[in-house]
């Protein structure tokens, strides 16, 4: 089966993206953002519009139909920073200094006056039909430059420019990698609950640049990225045969994973991207299998007359956490990647599902069902330290941001007495349990999966 899908052009451009480090002062890190305590006092930050010369503005408008590219990029940065809950971007109306002069040499007293502690300035121009962007991060109170970076890319990548700037700023101020130049793959939903139409969709982490990868002719579920973000594995009901598929985003080529005589589901990639791990259901029994994508060898990992599903590898590939009802109810288990040493780790009250290993390796996020409520939570890999982050009527399937700081999941609403009013949306929440936010999607959405950083 081959199907033409959306071609990922951005990934090609990524290779041409040049990052030049101009100057970097690390000695005066007076501003620090503590990301372990949630959003108690977000850091006031001024994001000045990026300055631009007239000639560049005219050319950008010709290519992108955007009037003021400098303002637009700064808006991307501002929105990203605001969404973290750690920063408080100040209103631009209060800015006293013009963007070009501020970028050249900020008058720190002006920025102090509006209570900005950090300032981001920049310049954008067109050089040989490419977008050249430079930006600086300033410590207002210490009156010092903290970071200055310039890079060149194709003009259509302008939103990514904003995301990359945010990643660099976030990393400089928090000491941790960002998660802004990333994408989310998810299932776009429409139609009544009994006849839901579902399509694979991919978008930037902030909800822009949505592309649909399937047409909605068949039911599709649970898409997940490979480590390089070029492949997706998911479940499709193509020809009414529920099977795990592999989709190459760049070529649009899809193929069934393995040759199983029944339903395969719950797929994920191994951390090295070489294997797909999934469940295979046969005669009322679901077990976990892997398939090597190079030599197509299929290996059975669990062999138990219970439902074993939702497998997820540890980042080093040596362990697998999964979901099993071998104790009578859905609980979370951890085993070695060859299937040995199976240990139950969830012992709290209620049912536990969809375990997913943190990219940092120290935590497992899960869905918990207890007394008619659904929770998203995290526990350590031995099951200790369980923390429930959010409670609702129905929500499930957490997926980690690449830096292991934020979880994205989906939440469905209750229908009314007439069976109407149903909706499904994506939400995100900090590991701290703070900063719960709806993730913007054009349609209803479910089954989100976060990519790794596209540029690094």
């Amino acid at each position, binding site marked *: 089966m081959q199907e033409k899908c959306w071609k990922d052009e951005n990934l090609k451009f990524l290779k041409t993206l040049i990052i030049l480090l101009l100057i970097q002062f690390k000695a005066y890190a007076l501003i620090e953002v503590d990301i372990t305590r949630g959003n108690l006092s977000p850091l006031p930050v001024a994001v000045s519009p990026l300055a631009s010369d007239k000639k560049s503005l005219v050319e950008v408008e010709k290519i992108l139909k955007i009037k003021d590219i400098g303002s637009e990029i700064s808006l991307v940065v501002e929105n990203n920073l605001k969404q973290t809950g750690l920063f408080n971007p100040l209103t631009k109306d209060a800015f006293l200094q013009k963007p070009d002069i501020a970028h050249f040499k900020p008058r720190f007293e002006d920025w102090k006056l509006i209570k900005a502690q950090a300032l981001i300035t920049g310049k954008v121009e067109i050089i040989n039909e490419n977008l050249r962007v430079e930006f600086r991060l300033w410590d207002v109170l210490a009156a010092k430059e903290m970071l200055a970076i310039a890079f060149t890319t194709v003009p259509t990548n302008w939103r990514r420019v904003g995301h990359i700037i945010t990643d660099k700023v976030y990393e400089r101020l928090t000491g941790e990698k960002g998660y802004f130049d990333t994408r989310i793959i998810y299932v776009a939903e429409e139609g009544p609950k009994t006849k839901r139409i579902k399509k694979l969709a991919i978008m930037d982490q902030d909800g822009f640049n949505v592309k649909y990868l399937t047409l909605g002719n068949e039911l599709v579920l649970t898409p997940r990225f490979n480590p390089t973000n070029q492949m997706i594995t998911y479940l499709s009901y193509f020809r009414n045969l529920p099977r795990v598929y592999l989709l190459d985003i760049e070529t649009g080529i899809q193929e069934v994973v393995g040759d199983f005589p029944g339903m395969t589901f719950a797929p994920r990639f191994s951390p090295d991207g070489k294997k797909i791990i999934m469940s295979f259901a046969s005669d009322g029994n679901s077990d976990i299998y892997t398939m090597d994508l190079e030599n197509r060898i299929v290996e059975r990992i669990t062999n138990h007359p219970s439902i074993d599903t939702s497998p997820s590898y540890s980042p080093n590939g040596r362990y697998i956490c999964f979901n099993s009802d071998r104790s009578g109810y859905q609980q979370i288990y951890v085993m070695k990647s060859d299937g040995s040493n199976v240990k139950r780790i969830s012992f709290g009250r209620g049912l536990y599902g969809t375990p997913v290993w943190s990219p940092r390796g120290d935590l497992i996020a899960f869905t918990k069902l207890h007394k*008619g409520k659904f929770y998203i939570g995290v526990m350590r890999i031995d099951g200790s330290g369980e923390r429930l982050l959010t409670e609702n009527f129905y929500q*499930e399937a957490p997926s980690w941001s690449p830096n292991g700081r934020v979880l994205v999941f989906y939440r469905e609403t209750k229908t009314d007495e007439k069976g109407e009013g149903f909706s499904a949306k994506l939400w995100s929440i900090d590991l701290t349990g703070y900063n719960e936010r709806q993730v913007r999607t054009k349609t209803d959405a479910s089954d989100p999966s976060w990519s790794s950083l596209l540029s690094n």
Partner: protein
Amino acid sequence: MTLNKILRNTFLVLVAGLILTACATTKKVETTAGQMQGDVYTGTDTVEYLASGVPDRVFFATNESILTTRSRETLRKQATWLRENSEITVVLEGHADERGTREYNLALGERRANAAKDYLMTYGVSASRISVISYGKERPVDSGSNPLSWSKNRRSVTVKAN
């Protein structure tokens, strides 16, 4: 029957016992009296018929794949009808309600449809005439978010395939 299956069935019966004991204290009065027994749907709202007097579906308790007395009765009728109409093949569609995680519910739907398949086979229907598909919670018949709606959605439906 493989050893696995025997083990599983024994296991399920044990679990069912535990659940029934657990529920006895908490769920005495259902507002939907007459349409549910425990939390298994016993009404006929959504039921269609494969032939006169042959209901097309059986219902399950939450998280369960055990066939109730009533379900077994329905399946015996289906088996009789299938034996009389030997050219007909069927698909058993297993479903779950919305109160579970998506992937687990896919497995649960498969387990439910197979429970119905095993019973039909016991009553003389050849395995080659039965295929099984799970929709998990993807195809509810009732879009409500209440115990009665959920009970209608926990089902295995026998559908003519030819």
